[in-house]
């Protein structure tokens, strides 16, 4: 959730006047491309659309996380948030309109961080009553407050959910075991 917090702190929360998914992608993609750390001509919008074609990126009712993955770049993850009061027809499996789009730019080396961010966000949304709190907002300021609440919840409750307790066994004997083939 730290990337979402970064976005809020950097002022990358916008009200979306656009009503279509494509227009929203164009807008959020351009915002991401405007971040100085993101290389020029990195094709953020196209990458977001390609990912969307592989599978819808709605996370929970009313919330979606479109994202662009890039290879061969060592950099941090960046995020920007779009809010739509009326909602955008996102083609989500539940058929509901999406009110909040949290868009990410993810270098390949940051996949783990991204997955953790997603799981944390999903957990925070679920534990605070879902998208209803965002739907009830009338101003961007209210949305910002609600999002900060989510970040607080996520950071306080902590992610991961739990630490794994794995069975640890050793090989019978090093001499007898077959050689590794990797």
């Amino acid at each position, binding site marked *: 959730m730290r990337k979402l917090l970064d976005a809020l702190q950097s002022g990358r929360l916008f009200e979306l006047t656009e009503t279509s998914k494509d227009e929203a992608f164009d807008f959020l993609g351009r915002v991401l491309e405007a971040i100085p750390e993101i290389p020029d001509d990195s094709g953020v919008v196209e990458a977001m659309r390609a990912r969307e074609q*592989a*599978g*819808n*990126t*709605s*996370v*929970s009712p009313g919330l979606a*996380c479109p994202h662009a993955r890039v290879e061969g770049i060592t950099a941090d993850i960046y995020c920007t948030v779009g809010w739509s009061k009326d909602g955008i027809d996102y083609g989500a*499996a539940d058929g509901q309109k999406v009110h909040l789009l949290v868009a990410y730019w993810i270098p390949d080396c940051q*996949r*783990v961080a*991204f*997955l*953790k961010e*997603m*799981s*944390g966000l*999903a*957990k925070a949304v679920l534990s605070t009553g879902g998208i209803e709190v965002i739907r009830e907002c009338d101003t961007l300021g209210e949305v910002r407050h609600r999002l900060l609440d989510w970040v607080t919840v996520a950071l306080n409750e902590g*992610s*991961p*959910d*739990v*630490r*794994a*307790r*794995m*069975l*640890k*066994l*050793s*090989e*019978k004997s090093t001499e*007898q*075991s*077959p050689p*590794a*083939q*990797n």
Partner: protein
Amino acid sequence: MPTPKTTKETPDRVTSLLHGTEEAAFAAVEASREGLSAEEAARRLEKFGPNSVAARRANAFVELLRKFKEPLVIQLMVICVLSYFFEDNETKKILSTSLVGGMVFFSVFLSYFQESRSAQAIAKLQAMVKSSCLVLRDGVETSVPIDEIVPGDVVVLAAGSIIPADCRMIQAKDFFLSQSALTGESMPVERMPLPTIDTPHSAQECPNGCLMGSNVQSGTGHALVLATGRDTQFGAMSARMVERKDATAFELGTRSFVWMMIRMMLIMTTLTFGFSAWRTGRPLDAFLFALTVAIGLTPEMLPMILASCLSKGAKSLARMKVVMKRLDAIQNLGAMDIFCTDKTGTLTQDHIVLQRHVDVIGRDSEDVLRYAWMNAHYQTGLRNLLDRAILSRTDLDVERSCRKVDEIPFDFQRRRMSVIVDHEGDYQLICKGAVEEILAVCDRYQIDDELHTMIPMIKDEVLEEYRSLSAQGFRVIALAYRDFDRSREVFTAADESNLVLLGYLAFFDPPKETAATALAGLRQRGVRAKILTGDNELVSRKVCQDVGMPVSRFMGDGINDVLALKAADVGISVDTAVDVAKESADAVLLEKSLLVLVDGIDEGRRIFCNIEKYIRMGASSNFGNMFSVLGAALLFPFQPLSPILILVNNFIYDFSQTAIPFDRVEDDQIAKPRQWNISGIRGFMLWLGPVSSLFDYLTFALMWFFVCPAACGGSWSELSTLAQSIPNLKPGDLSPAQLQFIILFHTGWFIESIVTQTLVVHVIRSAKVPFFGARASWQLSLTTLLAVSFACWLTFSPWIGGLGLNGPGLGTTYWLALTAMTVAYVTLAHLIARPRLQAA
């Protein structure tokens, strides 16, 4: 251990042993949970006989006698008797009886010997692919041929096993059976051990019974054998009714051909009788003549030719390491136009290596390897190639700190399996299986040692690693786990839920070097290859690219091959396949190579081609003879050939065909699938028949107008006029000159008929120019030459008096004309047959 008191287990007794207590069942077969000792099993095998439901073969004499019940043989014998009683001439009487006897010998003895040899060859070959199953012998799991299972054995069953006898479950874990062979019901049924059954059920419905003829769909278990062989429900059923298999396309085609010939024969015989009786005024002679004509028109050698071709083919295929379980499926190999194959081991090397073990984002993970190893190590079901690959990667010290608690076996609905392990006070369920199926039951995933909530969008993300590995040609399965508290002792498939996705296992099975060559070979032979695989499209696409073929559709693999094998025109399995797949197949490859199959297809086509030769030959010459005999019966005041000569002619003709199974087949004839083409046969008949008849009529003209008048001192009408002036000659009787005329006429047509009928095989055997472009095998050339030579010799032999032949009287004109006509016939027949053979 003593032999059980019951010497004959009946199906009713099996039902009763399924309803009673488990102790009673053990007592009845005098066995224990540890099974039998090897010595006791051997004693019982001696007592109860092999565990086989196959009907015992009748003794040779009875088998031989059965051949005499064939309508054709009865027909021959009736003619034999009639000839004997109605023939006045003693020599002819003996000759005709001997000849018909010889034909009975050909028809009965040759086909009997061929069929016996085929049956022996098949039995020998089938013994090479004997199915086996696991039983407890001396308390140890031992692999035993299914026909050596005895009552009292405890069989060890897993997914893919055949139920080898009528059994009672004494231990089971998620055990599901398919009883479709017994009940026709395709849905699997669950079976479990029960102390007793209170409500009466049939043996098939008993929830603790598993009966011979069914097979294990999923789960594992132990079962006590109550009855074997013909004492089983399946055996009793088989004994009550002869198993009827659906006729193959070839059998249907053959039947249709035979019926066409029989219809032709009946029409022909009736017309011949009518015309001949009217023209000669001797109805009895006409009747005898019509009966012999019927013999001439009957394809009596067809069963012998079929048996001989198929038997020879089965042996050739065995040399190529293809074992045919059904002889009549051989020609189906040649008819194959679409070849559906699985991938693993057929297109690939069947040498699967665990190449990578990675977490959900594709980083190498020792945890994934360790958990996969424990799953493979503890599972007791069907241990497949993937398990072996995992086990070969490492060897963990589990004895000291781990204990297996339970197992949820694999099945094709869930496409996953689990083991539950007790490790230092914790229970962990470790599940591996198809990626989609594992993901469907995961609600968390693990990265490093952190567990995170799985949401649909993240499933898409983690699937990316799977897609990437698959696209590289890896076969990928997923691994997941879940903790349980120690209060649980029994686990079911429902416990495979809320799992933690741990990572993926990527296996690689390199394509066979021969696969591309073999597939190209199939393409050249007009056979389209399709892969039916349970693997995902990405892996299939990669393998297909490597072997040079396009991707096909998803279907299945392993045990679920069975339905495909049953549905296919010819089901092919390999010797290393699961038992039920092997049992369902028509052919078993001893080598898992498509190159062997390509050879098999060629052999199937060769056999079909040779069978076709006989059929084309029979159809065209019989149709031609029909025109000739009918015309002659109408035109001439005497029979165009005496009944005895028709029999001799037929005998020689039959002999010439005995080498057809040994004939060589041209390469262009096996270049595409060979299927039964009844319209093609009809085309041959309608074109070649009249051509053959045309030369018969030319011979009639030659004999009637030139040869006979020249040798007998006048035309038939002149001789008839002269006959009226002969004293003591009764009205209707023939003068010596007239008899001489008829004998010469018979001789001329007899030789021409034999020459053209036997030589035509060289025309219809290939589209190439006979004798020059394509040569027959030495066997066929020899029998043809012998047949023609023998026929000619016969006309000069001391038997001529008895047979009514006069070779020396024919004169040079006849022999020159015959030579010219033969050359003309072969040329014309070749020109007519060539386009049809090219199109066939």
